[in-house]
């Protein structure tokens, strides 16, 4: 269709021996982080049902490999910015689940002192710059962060995540044009989970191969398998390298699937079948990773079970921490609106 | 726990009190019994004591404010404690707006006895002012700018008399500043003196007495030669503590009342109450009013004691230091204007009593005695009686007794 659009890792789709070079520690850590995100999200759903969490809650269950694979492929001082389905990104980046759960609880100990909530996770100390809740609103921000990298001639990259529906927003197109025009080191990551809320991609986008949407800006499009953490890892590695060395943007479509509804109040049976969800669950990124670790004898079943138990404990402690934290004092209401 | 300090009931008849002076400041510690403020009631200026221990957190009623009994005047609590709950609560508590009801504060009015002087036609008749401010009234609402209202208040101008020149007849600053009351040929100069609380109480209570109690009057002339000699002989013993004619009259009244208990009574609507005690009120004129301190159980006290107590009470009254129990509960009142060279007069009954004695001067006059004309010393006394309690004959018998005692006062020394 275009010179710019390429499909890279989709053909691999495997868990090949070449990934053993990442080393046992990193592989186990990636697996553990995916499990941590899964358990954290399951607990968040439970806490939501117990009314400990309010507002909107968009779970990352099913998409864990995207955040974990992409974070594993960049450096600690690189930047990342995402939309409102942001729990996985913050956890993958290493933010303490205690602080995140406290934020979900609206407590003063939360990452944003109870002012952000689920859709606005920030951890500036880890260059995780949000958590943005207007669809497409964060895309110019990520572009601006990349602008700063270039302005300061830094050896960094900015991962700018978005959902599949954001590609139809004007900010997407304006940003891609600016990034291409000014050659900015940004990787635009479209987490294509096939539905923008209840609207399937083919009902929203004239061109459903979203990685091709960069064509008109001369931005190379790539696609990766979001249920395979290594596919994500490889694609980000390549895009980040291009950003660092050539200061060029990339549009990366990562095909993934959310196992839960759009938000907690989403009766997803309206727009997708149970059968479809069950089929996608066969490709569960965590199960695939687990199988790989066992088959390649990187970890034993006992070690896998221990990880699960340890992660459950971390999540339980996060809930306990959030529960025991205090509400924001009323005096804090006017804090952090202006820098004084 | 913050505590409300409310306007206490400091007199039997008070319905509200005015804060004259705060003796404690916000933030000061107070203990039970400490005097924290002076309060003017309808009768007297009273010391107001704290009942609890704590820090005065907030003064709600300012000096000059009038507050009904039970109204919040201050908040007591622990230092630094938040008084806002009580204060918010108090927002619904009635508190008279001193600024709306009076033009100047009575404390000031007493000090400067003359208020602002204006002239206007026929002040006693509420005629429409020549400068009819009808245009400023909209369904009874007076239209005036906030500034104009404030200025009028500060200058003691009745804003209803001011003609508005602003939009739709609104009274504005220049109207108040340029306000000069219309002077006509029949104009009488006058001074408006705002009512003190005492004046207000006198006006209310005596008007009520005059309306509700059907008064009738009996006058008698008393031969005073014996009384004069009696007093002189008594006063020989003690030059410093002279017994006054009034002391003798009080004692005589006590004796007469003892004999005619139906006069020592009160009307209660469905019954008449006759008192066993004889408590005599003595009308004392003070600045801007009068008050009747009570000489309790006058029938059981000797003249010397009566005299001493009466003197103390009069001093207390003039200093406005009377305590409520010292000016309430009288069963009969004596009002003596003899020192002003008044021959005789009628007094309004001091409610809820049934009678009052008005006493005139002792005068020398020609009298016929045993067919012989000579110069005698006479005093005229007038009894005002409440006809609901006392009939003419009873009043006359009482006067007979009184006259007899006064004409033979030596019996009083018994």
């Amino acid at each position, binding site marked *: 269709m275009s010179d710019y659009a390429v499909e890279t890792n989709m053909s691999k789709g495997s868990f090949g021996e070449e990934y053993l070079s990442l080393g046992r520690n990193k592989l186990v850590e990636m697996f553990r982080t995916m499990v941590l995100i899964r358990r954290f999200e399951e607990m968040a759903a439970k806490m939501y049902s117990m009314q400990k969490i309010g507002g909107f809650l968009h779970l990352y269950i099913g998409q864990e490999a995207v955040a974990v694979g992409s974070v594993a492929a960049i450096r600690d001082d690189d*930047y990342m*910015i995402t939309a409102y389905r942001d729990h996985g990104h913050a956890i993958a980046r290493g933010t303490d689940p205690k602080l995140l759960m406290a934020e979900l609880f609206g407590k003063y100990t*939360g*990452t*944003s*002192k*109870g*002012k*952000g909530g689920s859709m*606005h996770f*920030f*951890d*500036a*100390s880890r260059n995780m*710059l*949000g*958590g*943005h*809740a*207007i669809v497409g*609103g*964060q*895309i*110019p*921000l*990520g*572009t*601006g*962060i*990349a*602008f*700063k990298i270039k*302005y*300061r001639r830094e050896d960094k990259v900015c991962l700018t995540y978005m959902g599949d529906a954001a590609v139809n927003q*004007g*900010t997407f197109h*304006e*940003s891609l*044009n*600016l990034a291409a*025009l*000014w050659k900015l080191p940004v990787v635009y990551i479209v987490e294509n989970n096939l539905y923008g809320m209840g609207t399937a991609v083919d009902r929203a986008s004239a061109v459903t191969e979203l990685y091709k949407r960069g064509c008109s800006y001369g931005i190379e499009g790539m696609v990766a398998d979001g249920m395979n953490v290594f596919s994500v890892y490889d694609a980000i590695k390549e895009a980040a390298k291009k950003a660092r060395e050539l200061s060029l943007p990339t549009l990366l479509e990562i095909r993934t699937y959310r196992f839960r509804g759009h938000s907690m109040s989403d009766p997803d049976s309206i727009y997708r079948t149970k059968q479809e969800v069950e089929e996608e669950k066969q490709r569960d990124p965590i199960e695939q990773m687990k199988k790989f670790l066992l088959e390649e004898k990187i970890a034993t079943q006992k070690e896998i079970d221990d990880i699960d138990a340890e992660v459950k404990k971390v999540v339980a402690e996060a809930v306990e921490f959030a529960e025991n934290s205090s509400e924001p004092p009323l005096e804090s209401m006017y*804090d*952090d*609106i*202006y*820098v004084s | 726990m913050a505590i409300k300090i409310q306007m206490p009931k400091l007199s039997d008849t008070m319905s509200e009190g005015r804060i004259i002076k705060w003796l404690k400041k916000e933030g000061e510690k107070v203990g039970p019994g400490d005097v924290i403020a002076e309060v003017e009631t309808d009768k007297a200026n009273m010391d107001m004591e704290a009942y609890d221990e704590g820090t005065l957190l907030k003064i709600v009623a300012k000096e000059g404010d009038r507050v009904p009994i039970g109204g919040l005047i201050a908040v007591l609590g622990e230092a630094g404690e938040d008084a806002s709950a009580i204060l918010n609560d108090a927002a619904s508590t009635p508190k008279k707006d001193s600024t709306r009801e009076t033009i100047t504060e009575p404390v000031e009015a007493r000090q400067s006895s003359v208020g602002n002087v204006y002239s206007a036609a026929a002040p006693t008749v509420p005629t429409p002012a020549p400068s009819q401010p009808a245009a400023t009234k909209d369904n009874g609402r007076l239209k005036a*700018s*906030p*500034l*104009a209202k*404030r200025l009028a208040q500060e200058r003691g101008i009745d804003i209803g008399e001011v003609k508005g*020149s*602003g*939009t*739709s007849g*609104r009274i*504005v*600053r*220049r109207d108040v500043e340029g306000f000069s009351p219309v002077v006509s040929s029949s104009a009488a100069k006058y001074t408006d003196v705002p009512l003190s609380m005492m004046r207000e109480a006198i006006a209310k209570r005596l008007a009520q007495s005059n309306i509700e109690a059907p008064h009738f009057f009996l006058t008698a002339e008393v031969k005073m030669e014996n009384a004069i000699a009696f007093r002189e002989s008594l006063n020989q013993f003690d030059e410093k503590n002279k017994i006054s004619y009034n002391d003798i009259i009080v004692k005589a009244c006590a004796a007469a009342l003892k004999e005619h208990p139906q006069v020592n009574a009160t009307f209660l609507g469905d019954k008449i109450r006759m008192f066993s005690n004889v408590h005599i009120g003595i009308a004392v004129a003070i600045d801007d009013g009068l008050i009747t301190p009570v000489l309790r159980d006058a029938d059981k006290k000797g003249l010397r004691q009566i005299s001493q107590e009466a003197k103390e009470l009069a001093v207390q009254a003039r200093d406005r230091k009377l305590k409520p129990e010292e000016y309430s509960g009288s069963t009969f009142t004596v009002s003596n204007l003899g020192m002003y060279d008044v021959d005789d007069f009628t007094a309004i009954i001091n409610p809820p009593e049934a009678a009052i004695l008005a006493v005139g001067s002792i005068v020398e006059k020609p009298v016929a005695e045993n067919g012989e004309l000579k110069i005698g010393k006479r005093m005229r006394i007038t009894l005002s009686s409440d006809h609901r309690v006392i009939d003419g004959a009873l009043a006359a018998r009482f006067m007979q007794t009184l006259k007899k005692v006064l004409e033979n006062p030596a019996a009083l020394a018994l």
Partner: protein
Amino acid sequence: MPEITYREALNQALAEEMERDDSVFIVGEEVAQYQGAYKVTQGLLQKFGPERVIDAPISESGFTGLGVGAAMVGLRPIVEVMTFNFSLVAFDQIINNAAKMRHMSGGQLKVPMVIRGPNGSAHQLAATHSQSLESFYSHVPGLKVVMPGTPKDAKGLLKSAIRDDNPVIFMESEVIYGMKGEVPEGEYTIPIGKTDVKRQGKDVTIVAYARMLGVALNAAEILAKDGIQAEIVDPMTIRPLDDEPILESVKKTNRCVVITEAWPFAGVGSEIAFRVSSKAFDYLDAPVELVSSEDVPMPYSKTLEHNVLPTPEKIVNAAMRVLYNSKDPGKSED
């Protein structure tokens, strides 16, 4: 003091601050090669190069958002909108991102940026290009809104805005870019959030800002011929509004007329009038008057346009009404 234009004053502020701090850059349409649509950025490209003076495509949402992102990570962008009318397509970036970033991140991030350009009407630009949008931005906690009305204020306030760690909406006016005024030589700044009394008077307080300051000063001259001394108070910063000097003035004059080029409904003028009514109630001898643009989209016709905008005559009439000298009772509040 040298006399320079409002435009030159802004240009000096930009150049001085870019010289002072290399994290400051300018992005916007026609700011570089073209030397600025209104020549405010004249010469900056030559002085600071294309990496710091950047021509943007017509993508206000894109480059405004880019500015927010750059500010989040330490730069100090100056985003020039050719006029504030075009900022409307970047509204989400300004309101949801710039204004709320610090709050939503619990104080982790700040957005030190300036969004500047001309606001309000010019000459016969009709409905979409003749809007005073300060009320929109002033409504939002997290933004500062600055609207200078003289060259001196423009320079001193723009320098403060660039140094401010918060997003500042800096609204200029096309009509007064050529206005001349004395500007101090050498380095100076004027603090954001300080109201200034531009003319002393005892009879009536007239609050006016930005382009309307000049209109109000003209009205004051007319009033002076009638012996009426108007006090002209210029907030200069709309948010945060320093209302104390306004209230002090009203306490002195007892009457207040508020001038705004914006529409009357739910506007900055209403806010100022509300504060005066609320905080100086007992000092008012007349209801506060508001002289705003008429409540219509701006028509193209020169005659209509002139009559939509506040004029010295309208201001004089309003002053006469609050002084109860009006021969025009038609617009009383009753």
